[in-house]
Each structure stands twice: as structure tokens, then as C-alpha cells.
């Protein structure tokens, strides 16, 4: 795979970051709003956070995609990242389980701590990190294997189950948590790619929770789903928030408002505002946030 293709496959790419603003009048207005680098309004920090991220910068070659972001993600909270296309929210999300590693020209600076361990420490094993920080992608991407094998894949490669019955339990529990057990229990051997889009996405969630991660990253998990499937996944997120820390990137402000405790607004690589979700949507502190949530651009 060439470098370009690799980048294109990762969401939030260099190409997106240079997409010109659509509305020239709004652009003039936005340019006049000053974003001070590294300065985030609202409540970016928390006590005893799960993730402690300080002065994070991401470069694609010469392009600076993420500009000096500092943020805490609290334990068992659901935090959503919103912002216009190319604002760097997906790139930032992918730093949290080092999914950007496979892109050669991507460099990351700053301090990213998960429970006081440096994620990007040279001795940190990325496999272990990803077992703790699971991920659900934009497009449902089940393996072209059976439903059972999809869920069992993670536990198998990590050696989490010694006996077949243990594995069966893990699969059942994961599918139950993902709300898929009733639909899938009679066809565990059926090939997963034959399911509907919404079922596939819930299967991907089941696959992610099968390795019992502490954090689940979701990159626009509902953008390929219809409203009913979306509602089902959102319910699921609400249920899961009791036991997991969830970071969700979304294009839908309604979704952010429905599922998350806190919301972070990104703009052109800056983290503009972080606050409790209802505050962000009812009384945003920053002018840019207000323009975005009132639909003046984005």
C-alpha cells in the first residue's frame, strides 16, 4: 500500500484538513474569530482522569493536523468529539489507541497518558494498548467469518479463554451486551457479512468488548446506519457507559447531545471548547462553538 492510500484510508487526513471553507462570507467571519493556540475554554480537565493528554500535536509530513491540544477524559464518561470535516477529531481519536502508527508520515508529539502510562513510550506494546482501548469504526467491518468467530477472534489471539466453554461464555456475554444475542444466537455459524448494516455495527461493538477493554473509541459509528439502527446503537452506548469509558466522534450534534456527558468542539486542529454537553449546546462559551451548533457552518 502506498503512502497516499494509507493516509486516505485513515479518516481525518491531510486532504481533509485543507478543504476550503464552503461559505466565503462565513469564512471572513470565522477568520475574524481568534482561536488562541493551546487555549481551550470550558472544562477540559478532570480529577483522576482515564486519559491525560497534554500538548498533543500531530503532523502529517509538514502539515500540522492537531495543534497543541490538552484534554482529560474522565473514567466511565462518554465524551463526544464534534466539529466540521477535517477539524482533526478523528485523527485525535486515533492517537488514543495508536491507530495512526501504520501511517509512515504521521508523527505525534506531546504527552498521552492512559492511567499514568505513556501510550507512546518506546517500550509500550501497541498490542496490549489496543486490548485495553478498543475501537469501533465508521463503516461496519466484520471479518468475513462466522458471527461466533468474529466475536471470539480477540479473546483467541490474546489467549483470554483456555477452554471452549469459557470462549462460549465470552461470546454470549459480548453479544448480550451489544444487544445482538437474541438475533444472533440461532445463527452463530452464519457468515457475519450477511447481516444488516446495523447488526454488523453492533457485532463490531461486541467484537470490541469481547476483549474486555477499559475504553472504547467510536469513530462515527452511526454514519452508515439508518435511524432505527442508529437509535439501537445509541441505546447501547448509554448502557455501556456504566462499565466503559467511551470516546465517540460524531457528525450529528443531536447524537452528541443524546449520548454524551461531555462534548468537545474541534476546529481546524484546535480544541476550542470542552464542557458538559448541555452547557455546550445551550450556552456555549466560545463564539465558534456557537456558530457551529447553531448551524451557521459545518
Amino acid at each position, binding site marked *: 500500500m502506498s503512502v497516499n492510500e494509507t493516509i486516505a484510508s485513515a479518516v481525518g487526513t491531510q486532504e481533509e484538513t485543507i478543504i476550503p471553507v464552503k461559505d466565503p462570507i462565513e469564512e471572513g467571519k470565522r477568520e475574524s474569530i481568534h482561536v488562541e493556540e493551546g487555549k481551550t475554554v470550558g472544562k477540559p480537565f478532570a480529577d483522576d482522569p482515564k486519559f491525560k493528554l497534554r500538548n498533543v500535536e500531530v503532523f502529517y509530513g509538514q502539515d500540522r493536523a492537531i495543534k497543541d491540544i490538552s484534554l482529560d477524559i474522565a473514567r466511565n464518561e462518554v465524551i463526544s468529539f464534534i466539529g466540521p470535516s477535517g477539524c482533526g477529531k478523528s485523527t485525535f481519536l486515533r492517537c488514543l489507541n495508536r491507530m495512526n502508527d501504520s501511517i509512515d508520515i504521521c508523527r505525534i508529539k506531546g504527552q498521552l497518558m492512559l492511567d499514568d502510562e505513556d501510550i507512546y513510550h518506546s517500550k509500550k506494546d501497541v498490542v496490549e494498548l489496543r486490548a485495553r482501548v478498543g475501537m469501533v469504526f465508521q463503516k461496519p467491518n466484520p471479518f468475513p467469518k462466522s458471527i461466533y468467530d468474529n466475536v471470539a477472534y*480477540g479473546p483467541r489471539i490474546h489467549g483470554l479463554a483456555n477452554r471452549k466453554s469459557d470462549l462460549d461464555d465470552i461470546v454470549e456475554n459480548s453479544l448480550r451486551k451489544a444487544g445482538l444475542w437474541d438475533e444472533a444466537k440461532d445463527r452463530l455459524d452464519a457468515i457475519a*457479512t450477511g447481516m444488516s448494516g446495523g447488526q454488523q455495527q453492533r457485532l463490531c461493538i461486541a467484537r470490541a468488548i469481547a476483549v474486555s477493554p477499559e475504553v472504547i473509541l467510536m469513530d462515527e459509528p452511526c454514519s452508515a446506519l439508518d435511524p432505527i439502527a442508529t437509535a439501537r446503537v445509541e441505546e447501547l452506548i448509554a448502557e455501556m457507559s456504566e462499565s466503559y469509558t467511551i470516546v465517540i466522534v460524531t457528525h450529528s450534534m443531536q447524537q452528541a447531545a443524546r449520548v454524551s456527558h461531555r462534548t468537545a468542539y474541534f476546529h481546524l486542529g484546535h480544541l476550542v471548547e470542552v464542557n458538559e454537553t448541555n452547557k455546550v449546546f445551550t450556552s456555549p462559551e466560545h463564539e465558534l462553538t456557537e456558530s457551529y451548533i447553531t448551524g451557521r457552518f459545518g
Partner: protein
Amino acid sequence: MTDQSSQAEIVRNSLKRRYRKERRFRMYGILAIFIALASLFILFADIISKGHTGFLKTTITLDVTLDSETMYLDDPTDEDQRSMADFVAPIIASLQEHFPEVESAAEKRELGRLIGTYGASKIRDLLKDNPDMLNTTQTMEFLAHDRVSTYVKHADNPRYSIKLSEQQQGWVDQLLEKGVIDTSFNDVLFSRGDSREPANAGILGAIVGSLLTMLVTLAISFPVGIAAAVYLEEFAPQNRITDFIEVNINNLAAVPSIIFGLLGLAVFISLFGMPRSVPVVGGLVLALMTLPTIIISSRAAIKSVPPSIREAAEGVGASKMQVVLHHVIPLAMPGMLTGSIIGMAQALGETAPLLLIGMVAFIVDVPGGFFDSATVLPVQIYLWASSSEQGFVELASAGIMVLLTFMISMNALAIWLRKRLERRW
């Protein structure tokens, strides 16, 4: 209103022209396909019309009296006696029963020439294995001489010249009427190696030689090709060296095959001192020739594995190697297999490089191993086609049919595998 209707008129008129153009365009396509199919049909028709007689053998069935006096043989187990004995005499004697008017020695000799040269050795081998058959009468089936065979099969065909005397032709006609001379399926073709005499020549030696050579080729080029493709696609860093390697692999695929033959001669035979004409060297040379094809098609297959599957596996914490082994290779396997089978079919039909490493020799024995002298199907066809005897012409065409059958089945296997293993995502 008038404006609109005239516009509609213009459109309608142009419509006719457009449809005409489209029809013409489609005709060109149909014509092209027709030309391709017609030439293929002519090729097959020609080969089959020339070669189908190659699958027939002409036999003469005789009741042979194995009389010890006519053969000058008392003890068939004695090798010295066997080498001195006259095994043609009983055949002539038996033929003479059909033609009592033949008396002179010259005529008897002519009569004896209806039988192929290996008739005598057939009697010798029979007596050697069954000494108690001496002085009994046995019904034996002999292969007719090549000239008789040509006369029987092609008497009406002006392309063949009949080399039998008038008298011999008369005898053959009579024997045909009596059912003594008959044609049947040519099992000799599939049970023997090459021979100087067309009636005795078989293609089994070449089939086994091809099989052994292909096994060596497959054993080397498939694992090496796939390993190279996986490394280049998944692990190699993107830099000048990998670019250089990539360009050279693509170039290698276009190198004329005879160059690989020269390489094999220089490296495997001259430098490493491997024997000539053996399947191992042939297989090595063909493996080198097939490698680029396999690497290129395998890389394309790996590239076509969607990145979302890799991400999914990486997302649950699979290591790079697990991603490759559990997901990428299984998903790319149909493409890899298809490429390999097509590469192998290409290698099966390759002649030029094998000529250089000596697999063009005249080899009678069916090879028994990788280090036995052997020849392969296309080379055998080449040898027969360039042979002067008429009987070999039809054998060459029959050989082509056998080779084509192998190729078609290999390609069919490739298609079947692709359909079978194809997965959706």
C-alpha cells in the same frame, strides 16, 4: 409551438443517425469476437482433424504357433539361445496361413514387413516369461508396421504417400476384410515413452516428465512468490530499494523465456554441476520464469484486501503478523491461487528454456524420479513435429490435444477455485 416541433424533428432525425452509429459500433464488437472465435475454431478443427487418428492404433491379430524348430529355440530360459533364435519366423508362418500362394523367400520377407519391428521382441518376451508356451499356439495381437497403419488410416488422404507395394496393399485389404487387421484405441500412446517407430511411440514419458517438472516449479515458485509478495506488500519499507525491486520484478515478467534457459544452463548446470535433461533443472528454470507472474498477481490480490479488515483486526489488538496470517492471506488466497495456476499453465507450455538445458533429448524410458533424464509435453510435440516419418505427424497433433486438455483443465481449476473461495465483504 412551431419552434418546439421543429426542434423535436431535429432530435428525431439525429436519433436515427445515433442509433445507426450505435448499431455499427456493436457490429464491430461482434465481428471482433467472431474473428477470434473463428480462428480458434479453425485451429482446433485443424488439430483435431489431423490428430484424431493419433489416438487409433492398427493391430494385426494372429494365431502364432511357437514351434521350437522354426525358431531354432529349445530352451526359452537360456539367454544365449534366445539371442540366436528367429522370432520372426512364427509370425511369417502364421501370416502365410492366410496367403498360401506366397512361397518365395522375397515375398515372405515382404509379408513379414506388415508387422512392426517390435513384433519379434513381443514373442521373445512372452516366451521368456512363460517358457512352457513353447510348441503351443497363441493368439497374439501385434502392432502393424507404420506403413500399414498409414495405409489403413489414410488410404484416401492425398496428404499421405502410401509406401506399401501393390502386393502388400492387396494383402492388407484381404486381412482387413477378414478382420485380422483392425484399428482400436491407442493405449500405447498413454503407456509408453518415445520410440523411433511411430506405432510404438507414447507420450507417457513426456506426461510424467512434465508432471515432475511442474512439481518442482510449484514447490519453489509458489511459496517463494507468495512470501516475496507478502513481504513487499505488508512489511517492506517504502524506499528506493523496494521501488527498485518492484521495477525489476515487473521487468523480469517480460524477459523472453529463452533467457531463463541460458541462465539455467550457466548457473545450474555449469556452475552447480547439476545433470542435464533432468526435471529438477527444468523445474528450477521454469520456477524462475513463473516467479514474477506469481509475485505480481499475489501482490494485486493482497492489495485488494480492504483496509477496513486490517483496521478491524488491528483494532482488537492483532499484531502485524496476525493481521497478515489470519486475515490478509486467507482473503487474498483465491487471487494468489489463480495467478499461480495461470503461471503454472504458462510454464507447462514452455519449450524454449528447456531446449537449452537439454530436455530435448530422445528419451525412451518413462522417468522414475526428479533426477532421471526426461522430456516434457511441448518438447515432445516439437520433436515429433520435426520428425520426418509420417506416423509422427498425427502423434504430434494428438500430443497437442493432450497438452491442450491439461491446459484447459488447469484454467478451469483456476476459475473454479476463484468462484469457490471468493468471499464478500
